[in-house]
């Protein structure tokens, strides 16, 4: 089919993807509404978040202009840089809430693990696209190493959530690259046998989170408190929710995480099943668009990159909502684009910028 077009649309000229843009705006807008309520009507938090959105969108715009082959070139450098930062964090990170996840550079504090959320897809896509596909055993091992190294460094911080995210998304990419199914089964078996080792390395409080996940009522004063209250909040929202700003708050008002990790509970309580479903549909549209972009990509690197960024986004959302509804143990991961906080949102939106770049830099020539 002839795909040559006479002129580019204005969006394409600016290397923007309309679908993604609309969904992002709607999600960010919804997020601000929910944040306003979750923060007990603290306008300063909303304004702060909006300012971060503006910066993130500017970054997204800039990244969308850059051609994908530039990304391919810097992939290994970004990865090495990110790993070094992770090592630094373990060494001398500033302590925030008992976990070393941050580095301070002058006035800025950021989490190096966030860089890995982009760097790992980048380097996997770069590496795998250079190999013969389907990948051979040696390639597979190398890919696994590329994933496990930053994942372990992150988990050691301790930041179990982001570590798991890196592993899930990385695994997804390897799957996408066409690894033969027998290898998948072998890896599954290896993973099952490695789980005890992972368990051994987990901090006590991380292990407790798993126990409490299985039975939150066993520790109602400690770790189980979050899950119990979250389920009550969400469940009591019913079909249409209690209405904006009308969450009883008595469950969540003094939870330190209600504006961050558990913000979905506020959404569920105030907007009900309909509201939650609406959010999930928006996320799904973004994910479908991301997958679509990956199928329309014109070289292996772009294809894999689009797929992996989309998977990273999907897992961020799935892990958070799963945790908040009691499907997964509490691992401390913010809800993409809605939770209060800068670094995670910036990397996600930046990722969409890269997606837009991949899509709009195609050579519009029929195949």
């Amino acid at each position: 089919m002839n795909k040559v077009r006479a002129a580019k649309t204005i969006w394409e000229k600016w290397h923007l993807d309309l679908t993604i843009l609309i969904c992002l705006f709607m999600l960010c807008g919804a997020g601000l509404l929910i944040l306003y309520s979750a923060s007990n009507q603290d306008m300063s938090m909303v304004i702060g978040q909006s300012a971060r959105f503006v910066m993130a969108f500017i970054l997204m715009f800039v990244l969308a202009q850059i051609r994908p082959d530039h990304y391919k070139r810097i992939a290994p450098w970004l990865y090495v840089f990110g790993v070094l930062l992770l090592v630094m964090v373990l060494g001398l990170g500033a302590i925030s809430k008992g976990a070393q996840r941050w580095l301070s550079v002058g006035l800025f504090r950021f989490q190096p693990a966030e860089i890995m959320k982009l760097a790992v897809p980048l380097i996997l896509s770069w590496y795998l696209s250079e190999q013969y596909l389907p990948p051979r055993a040696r390639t597979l091992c190398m890919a696994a190493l590329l994933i496990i190294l930053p994942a372990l460094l992150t988990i050691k911080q301790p930041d179990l959530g982001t570590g798991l995210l890196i592993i899930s998304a990385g695994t997804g990419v390897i799957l996408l690259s066409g690894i033969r199914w027998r290898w998948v089964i072998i890896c599954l078996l290896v993973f099952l046998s490695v789980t005890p080792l992972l368990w051994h390395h987990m901090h006590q409080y991380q292990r407790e989170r798993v126990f409490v996940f299985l039975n939150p009522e066993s520790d109602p004063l400690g770790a189980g408190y979050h899950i119990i209250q979250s389920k009550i909040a969400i469940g009591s929202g019913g079909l249409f929710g209690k209405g904006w700003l009308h969450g009883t708050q008595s469950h969540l008002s003094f939870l330190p995480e209600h504006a961050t990790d558990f913000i979905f509970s506020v959404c569920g309580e105030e907007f009900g099943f309909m509201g939650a479903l609406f959010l999930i549909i928006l996320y799904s549209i973004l994910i479908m668009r991301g997958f679509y972009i990956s199928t329309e990509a014109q070289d292996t690197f772009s294809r894999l990159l689009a797929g992996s960024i989309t998977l990273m986004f999907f897992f961020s959302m799935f892990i958070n909502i799963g945790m908040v509804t009691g499907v997964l143990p509490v691992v401390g991961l913010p809800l993409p684009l809605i939770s209060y906080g800068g670094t995670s949102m910036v990397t996600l939106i930046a990722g969409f910028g890269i997606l837009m770049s991949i899509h709009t830099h195609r050579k519009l020539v029929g195949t």
Partner: protein
Amino acid sequence: MSKRFTLKNPKQEIDQYKRRLAVVSIFVGVLLLVLVARLMYLQIVRYQLYSTLSQQNLLSVAPIDPSRGLIYDRNGVLLAGNMPVFSLEVSPSKVHNLKQTLAALNELIPLSPADLQAFYKQLGEGRQFGSIPLRVKLTDQEIATFAVNQYQFPGIFIQAHMVRYYPFGAVMEPVLGYVGRINAKELAQVNPANYSATNYYGKAGIEKYYETMLHGTVGIQQVETDVNGRIIRSNQSKPAIAGNNLYLSIDSKFEVAIAKILGNNAGAVIAIDPRNGQVLALVSTPGFDPNQFVTGISEKAYSALANDPSHPMYNRAINGQFAPGSTVKPFYALEGLQTGMIAPSTQFFDPGWYKLPDSEHVFHNWVRKGFGWVNVETAIIQSCDTFFYDLAYKMGVHKLGDVLTQFGFGQATHIDTYGESLGLVPTPMWKLRVHHQPWYPGDTVVTGIGQGYLLVTPLQLAHAVVTLVNHGQALQPTLLLKTETPQGALTQTQAIPQAVVNFSQHYYDLVLKAMREVVSDPRGTAYAAGLGAPYTFGGKSGTAQVFGLKGNETDNSNLLPLKLRDDSWFEAFAPAQNPTIVVVVFMEHGGEGHSVMLARQVLDAYFNQEHK
């Protein structure tokens, strides 16, 4: 054997990718459906349950305060107990408009600015459970007033708490320490869930050292409350476990008697049983009443205590670091004998003064005309400074420091309470580092009579005398005698031996004999104190000149202004053979010999009571 593509085939790659993507998409779709299904379950299937839980009957988990363990003396006399107190508490998450509600409340029950300040501070620290106290110690009138009007204030209620009280007040404070309101830093050191119902934490002394044992374990109570915070139903899911009761080795009657003997003077007394290291008394005066700290001391009262020139908050017994004076002479004598520097029969002539070679500076004996010919035994009995100036110079600062260190000076005694000071055993390296000056021979000489840079705590001195009396077997001073679980099981603490100071038993005998003669020999510095005693004892006096001002303005009817008077020490053991008690009496600015007389009174008190 898997197929290998020798050339990259884009079309095949794309197709294969699309196949893979399809699989991954299905997987993603399934997971999304799982989420949606879960939401449906929570919000539609279980809606009634959760709605009820959230709106009509709020399911709260309330922590149950565990009862703090009691502290007794060795005979079962209560030293620290718990008594009920009623306070006004706020459950912030249940109050709709905090500022308004508090303003309205203030018209009923006076809330001082200090109360509000403390309340907002705790609110800011973000405790998520239970309630925050607004005003403690309500009067009966206030309780009644509030009870009648409680319906107007949802989220605010009266809570009965058990709080600590100390029947002996200031006397026992140096031993027990006290509890105060827990702060964020302390909360960070413990499991916060365990402390979710507790407002208090040990801040000093035994209360702090044994905090974990005394605190117990929090209980959990599931309560269903209505929208106004009234409890509809409660099930206790896990009862609280009370803390362990502690029995201390302290004898309260003895301690009270000693405090009376010291009176208002600044000083300290420590009494240890040398057979097992049990601390029988630990007194520091003047003191302060710890009961005022329990529910929160006002800033005014606190600064009055902190700025009091007699330093009542200063625990002289374990924190006070002072020059020991002649009390360390017996230890030097041991070292001199053991290293062969002197022999028991070595004669030394004391003209009443001492001069270093190539120096014009004169060091005086405390008896100006000197004691004439002395040996080590008579030097101890009469506390001959000249003998020890010479001994110190011959031994050198390192040997002096060595024996002091072996007897535990300059280090922790590891007594089971909080906050002991380490004192100081000076060395040339130390002086260079701290004072940027070299060590002079004169420094060694004055160290020889326990002056100069040497600092010890009364506790360290008592500990060292216990070692001496035990012929070198050091024992850790212990305050805890036994613990009692809530079920009544008793655990006795054992004596804890420490490193042995291995000197010849013959020399130990000699030095102890000399110390007995300090009391029994008419030339002895404690002879007057020993007259007429129905028991025998031995010891060594010490007087330390005070360099620098101590700003003590307590007036006294003696000749010299207090701040210039010397510190006075006496270390004693009784009975003279096979002692059952070691006592150290320290009086700040006591003047020469004062502690000796007090020590006699202390021993009188000890022997007049029946002791096993």
